[in-house]
């Protein structure tokens, strides 16, 4: 009980709330850290099989803003040339051709 002497210089009305508050803030911070670094807690609390939330999220279409920016322009011959801006900022070209255009431009399989 040697530490009891703290109450001779620190009023219990100050020290006890400070001590309890430190415990509360510390434990809250640890639990927030656990919740923000794991993904199974919501599954556990809702009774779903652990990991099912991640599976459902992976099945959703990607709506990440980083992959949204993309542009395309129509070419005069009716085909489509698209400029795709990739998430890392690089560009890629994609050409979409109608089936008849591909057929017309295809190399004949039989030599003439």
């Amino acid at each position: 009980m040697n530490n009891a002497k703290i109450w001779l210089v620190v009023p219990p009305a100050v020290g006890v709330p400070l001590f309890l508050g430190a415990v509360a803030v510390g434990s809250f911070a640890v639990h927030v850290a656990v919740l923000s670094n794991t993904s199974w807690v919501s599954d556990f609390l809702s009774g779903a099989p652990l990991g099912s939330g991640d599976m459902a999220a992976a099945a959703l279409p990607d709506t990440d803003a980083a992959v949204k920016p993309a542009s395309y322009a129509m070419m005069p011959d009716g085909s489509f040339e698209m400029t795709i801006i990739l998430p890392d900022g690089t560009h890629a070209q994609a050409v979409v051709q109608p089936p008849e255009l591909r057929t017309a431009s295809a190399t004949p399989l039989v030599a003439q």
Partner: protein
Amino acid sequence: MTDEDKVWPTGLNLKEAEEVHSYLIDGTRVFGGIALLAHILVAVSTPWLG
């Protein structure tokens, strides 16, 4: 007046300070025991700690 009877700036003497401290120690032990039990249950029933 002995040292045990001296009233310190907080208004407590040594015996009263030890009484306050004993309540704090008891509360901490009860809290710790409940928390230990809760953590054991969580460790058993969830992937926490792998």
